[in-house]
């Protein structure tokens, strides 16, 4: 599943570690989500939406599928 995590993070000038800290996950998890290697659980997707102040469907694109 593709997402706009990298763009949204860059707009706020956050590093992957910054975002990971806000989400309470590891930097590797943020990296895996950004690269489309891992689709987050629903609670984590909601947490991402809350951190960026956006709706889930504006961050994650369910039409494109990843390989996880």
């Amino acid at each position, binding site marked *: 599943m593709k997402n706009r995590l990298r763009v949204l993070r860059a707009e706020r000038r956050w590093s992957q570690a910054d975002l990971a800290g806000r989400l309470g996950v*590891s930097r590797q998890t943020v*990296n895996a989500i950004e*690269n489309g290697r891992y689709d987050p659980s629903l609670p984590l997707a909601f947490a991402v939406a809350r951190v960026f102040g956006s709706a889930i469907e504006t961050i994650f694109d369910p039409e494109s599928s990843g390989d996880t």
Partner: protein
Amino acid sequence: MFSGLPSERISRIGVAEFVGAAATLVAGTLLLRRAGLFYLERPYSYYFFFPGVMALFISGWLVFRIVRRGEYPWVFGLAAIALPLFQPSVAPYTVRFRVVVAIRDLALITTAVLFVARSIRRADELERRVHVQAVSWSYTAIVLALVSYAMFEDVLPPLHATWVASALLASWMAAWAYESARYQR
């Protein structure tokens, strides 16, 4: 975008410390065994005894550093190496010695299990998923190997349970490292 090691559970210093701890664990155990062989000839015994104790002390210190940073996957690798080295099933059979060894092993295993369990409980959802995937295919591989062994048991040398336990731990760690890296490519 992958800019480092596949997991925060593996640092570069952790790799070096794991290799050092494994090497000194093997060296220390083998040296103390040699010291045991020469215990009646004291000068020879000392040549092996003190370096052996020193090597085990260094190994313990390196493991302490690994544990303090929370890099728990190395514990699987070290346990896989330690099990066949300690050879619990062939320890001298005197009641007092067996009790001492049993208490030592119980303390070591309990500490390791508690540390790993606490670390996995603190892990995030991706790391837990990595563990589930790693355990599922590494243990499946070991089970297939055991079933294959069982079919030829009559013509193959006996298989120690220690080796099986060691293989389970080693394969879990290898599968975990592979699965972790797979998500970071």
